[in-house]
């Protein structure tokens, strides 16, 4: 069929734009093993770095003897803090305004901390040399409990800031205290609590866990001494930020640094931070004049790079006797480990924890967070969530359940009574956010109907009867969750990291023959940007997605952006893409009008062309316009067809969802069987339904892991008990259920295409849903709150403590 004979619909379909389940362009490479991940990079003469790490969680370092290691054939150098000190690089700034030792400077503060960096000709020699470095330690008292850390006579962990009363986020009240962050109205909230019909109170702990992407962190640093240029390849979720930070701390001019994020094997927040391995590799490359590769192994990844969560959230929720919530109070004790290396926007030391009023119209609320140092690894990153939103969602969704128990109410009904109504948007929350859009009641009713909620409750009641009659040893739990996320950081007026505003960018070049390249400041780690950003653009500019190359991750070519985490790519860079596309379109309109010999206002965009208004047979396709932009002298119009957009979002976006989980719990073995999981997500405009569904499956599986077994556990002297995949629970295909996905669509009113972001929603909503299901199974026996993860042992213990073992 010729182009002219195609119907409008056929032309639109051919673009593979918004809403198309377009197959991913990335997969042709990945399925045949042709990805290019950091460990695949091989440069001439490349050396390998490896760390000597601390076996102790807290110790003085008395001496380091590198003689035997240095003498091993093939070892090029061994770096210690003493070598980095003259360069001022033995400490580095963290993204949270704290500083962190690059290599142990007199003491170590967590097990696995970097003590010395060995550089050798291959990774085997490096590993041998690590064994030969002799370090003499003197053990110090260890603190793994953040509450103990704040006791008056607790040992001081951070000698370097002893007695400093002012931290990066205000006053410090103890040597192991980092910050206090307060939001909302304390006095008003306390007054509401004092006068309430009902107050439910609970300590909700969200345990320490780890993003643990399948690919660990790593880099290759290559200093070209001839032209003075440093190229740094690495698993970076924010390559431009890495370039700026590298320049600031190394003193190398920013134009002489090129940062490249190649293919990344999953990130989930783990690859946002700056790690000692990067600094040491850069120094090693400068010192040796050779490229240096450092790739951590799994144990190093779990024990030393960014963990997530570890929030102790004490909550009080007030309500009238018929269930209308009147106030929410929360105090969080946040265990940040040895250095405050959270990756939150500067003004938000506890991230967006103040989204903890969730999906509910709560008129009065107060939140305070104390950040605390302990002898654990630094971090506190947004693991598959926008900054601390998972913690907030878990907190409120547990508190709702606890309140339902106190009120003797059905938890679905309690939610229904308290949802923010559709007519209340934009909604101003008591803790300072303006929710952009939502229709929670509609989503909730759709979910309740899809799972036959009433039927499930009836089945559960029958099961309970059978259990009490001795006919079964399995209880049934129904987990509910309605979450609201806050993603897309963020407006430059209140969101920055290290002073860099959190806008994002897109640059588009249309080629003469009508195909295009788009470059962005973000970087995919599996989200399929090369596929979806081309779809946004296809709909905006009428060039088929298949004819658009999307490129990210090379700071020499991509426009500046803050990278990919916190579900910010679609809300921010996706918006930049649409806006840049509209600039292209505006120019194309002028060119079309000129070619059609009519006024600019007399042509309009139609799928893949501009048509003369009222005369659709007179048109110029985008392909023709592109060519004309290169070969025609058009008065008042510059040649070429290119645009760049830096997008500063006016607000965050607020995706939401309604989830239901049905679980069978064997009280004798503690084994839980997820029978059903229904996930309804509303992420605004849907770009690629296939990719959305994939993101939901993946996020739910990480939620399953976290809720049911995955944790970073420490013993009392700070040994990591879950340092390998033997102990760190990662569900296999056999342990993972099938999920039912569903959606509603409530576009964001301020986003150019109405999209909100989805990658993290299932993790945010999934964890409370799995956890609520386990809690719900035991509700008839008086359980109000038990800590995750709900592994078999802990579930068995709950049953045991409730007297269910006779």
């Amino acid at each position: 069929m010729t182009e002219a004979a195609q119907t409008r619909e056929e032309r639109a379909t051919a673009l593979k734009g918004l809403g198309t389940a377009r197959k991913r362009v990335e997969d042709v490479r990945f399925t045949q093993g042709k990805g290019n991940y950091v460990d695949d990079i091989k440069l001439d003469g490349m050396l390998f770095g490896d760390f000597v790490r601390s076996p102790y969680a807290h110790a003085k370092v008395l001496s380091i003897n590198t003689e035997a290691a240095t003498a091993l054939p093939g070892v090029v150098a061994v770096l210690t803090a003493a070598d980095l000190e003259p360069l001022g690089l033995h400490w580095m700034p963290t993204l949270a305004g704290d500083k962190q030792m690059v290599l142990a400077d007199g003491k170590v503060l967590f097990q696995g901390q970097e003590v010395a960096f060995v550089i050798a000709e291959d990774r085997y020699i490096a590993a041998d040399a690590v064994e030969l470095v002799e370090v003499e330690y003197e053990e110090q008292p260890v603190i793994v409990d953040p509450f103990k850390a704040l006791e008056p006579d607790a040992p001081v962990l951070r000698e370097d800031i002893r007695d400093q009363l002012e931290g990066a986020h205000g006053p410090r009240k103890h040597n192991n205290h980092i910050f206090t962050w307060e939001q909302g109205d304390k006095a008003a909230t306390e007054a509401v609590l004092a006068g309430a019909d009902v107050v439910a109170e609970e300590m909700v702990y969200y345990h320490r866990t780890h993003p643990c992407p399948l690919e660990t962190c790593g880099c290759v640093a290559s200093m070209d001494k001839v032209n003075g240029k440093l190229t740094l390849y690495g698993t970076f979720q924010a390559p431009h930020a890495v370039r700026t930070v590298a320049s600031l701390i190394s003193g190398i001019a920013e134009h002489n640094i090129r940062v490249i994020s190649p293919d990344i094997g999953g990130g989930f927040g783990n690859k946002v931070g700056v790690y000692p391995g990067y600094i040491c590799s850069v120094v090693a490359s400068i010192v040796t004049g050779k490229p240096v590769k450092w790739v951590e192994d799994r144990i190093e990844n779990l024990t030393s790079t960014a963990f997530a969560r570890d929030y102790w959230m004490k909550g009080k929720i007030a309500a009238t006797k018929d269930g209308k919530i009147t106030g929410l109070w929360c105090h969080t004790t946040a265990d940040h480990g040895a250095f405050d290396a959270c990756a939150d926007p500067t003004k938000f030391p506890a991230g967006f924890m103040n989204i903890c009023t969730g999906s509910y119209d709560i008129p009065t609320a107060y939140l305070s967070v104390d950040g605390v140092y302990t002898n654990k690894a630094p971090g506190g990153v947004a693991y598959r969530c926008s900054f601390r939103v998972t913690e907030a969602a878990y907190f409120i969704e547990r508190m709702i359940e606890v309140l339902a128990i106190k009120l003797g109410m059905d938890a679905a009904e309690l939610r229904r009574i308290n949802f923010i109504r559709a007519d209340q948007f934009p909604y101003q929350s008591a803790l300072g956010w303006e929710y952009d859009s939502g229709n929670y009641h509609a989503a909730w009713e759709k979910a309740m109907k899809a799972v036959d909620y009433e039927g499930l409750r009836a089945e559960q009641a029958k099961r309970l009867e059978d259990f009490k009659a001795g006919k079964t040893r399995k209880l049934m739990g129904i987990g509910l969750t309605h979450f609201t996320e806050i993603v897309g950081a963020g407006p430059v007026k209140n969101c920055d990291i290290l002073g860099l505003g959190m806008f994002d960018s897109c640059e588009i070049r249309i080629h003469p023959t009508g195909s295009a390249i788009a470059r962005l400041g973000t970087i995919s780690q599996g989200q399929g940007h090369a596929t979806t950003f081309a779809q946004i653009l296809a709909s905006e500019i009428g060039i088929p997605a298949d004819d658009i190359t999307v490129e990210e991750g090379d700071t020499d070519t991509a426009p500046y952006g803050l990278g990919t985490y916190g579900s910010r790519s679609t809300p921010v860079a996706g918006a930049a893409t649409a806006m840049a596309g509209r600039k292209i379109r505006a120019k194309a309109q002028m060119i079309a009008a000129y070619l059609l010999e009519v006024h600019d206002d007399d042509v309009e965009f139609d799928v893949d062309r501009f048509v003369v208004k009222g005369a659709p047979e007179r048109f110029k396709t985008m392909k023709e316009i592109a060519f004309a932009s290169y070969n025609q002298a058009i008065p008042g119009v510059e040649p070429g067809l290119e645009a760049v957009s830096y997008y500063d979002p006016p607000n965050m976006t607020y995706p939401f969802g309604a989830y239901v989980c049905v679980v069978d719990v064997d009280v004798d073995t503690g084994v839980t069987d997820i029978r059903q999981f229904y996930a309804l997500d509303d992420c605004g405009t849907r770009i690629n339904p296939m990719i959305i569904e994939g993101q939901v499956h993946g996020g739910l599986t990480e939620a399953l892991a976290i809720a049911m077994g995955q944790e970073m556990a420490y013993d009392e002297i700070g040994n990591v008990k879950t340092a390998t995949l033997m102990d760190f629970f990662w569900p296999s295909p056999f342990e993972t259920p099938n999920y039912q996905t569903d959606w509603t669509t409530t576009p964001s009113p301020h986003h150019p295409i109405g999209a909100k972001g989805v990658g993290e929603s299932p993790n945010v909503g999934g964890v409370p849903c799995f956890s609520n299901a386990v809690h719900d199974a035991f509700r008839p026996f008086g359980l109000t709150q038990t800590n995750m993860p709900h592994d078999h042992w802990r579930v068995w213990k709950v049953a045991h403590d409730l007297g269910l073992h006779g």
Partner: protein
Amino acid sequence: MSKMHVKMTVNGKEVEALAEPRMLLIHFLREELNITGPHIGCETTHCGACTVDLDGKSVKACTVFVAQANGANVTTVEGLVNDDGSLSVLQEMFREHHGLQCGFCTPGMITRAHRLLQENPNPSEEEVRFGMSGNLCRCTGYQNIVKAILAAAAELNAAREAAQ
């Protein structure tokens, strides 16, 4: 450390090299032969990212010394593409059903699935999940991987039937 002479067939080609006997097969493939399809996700036999086919069995190449693979016949994901360079049915089905995201687990997944379908050409969903349980993925939640493998099995079976 002294090196030994190793010889094996990798993706149908004879290779010979000197290597330390303690070198792991995964490092030998990736660093000596530049076959970087198989990845390293744990080095402790848990994740399956390094899965290769060794003499007709799925093995985790991070737990095999190169000395043990001497004389063996090794296939990696690179060796599974069709002779004309196009994607195999399994590879195509992974793409079709969105069975991958970051792609890091994918070479191991596909290599294992390839062997699974030789061991059991007509598996149930349960059998696929069990047969793949040595391969971990952090991104996909497996649902689409399972779908992809079942679809590949159906297509391969149909092709076999048609050929008979």
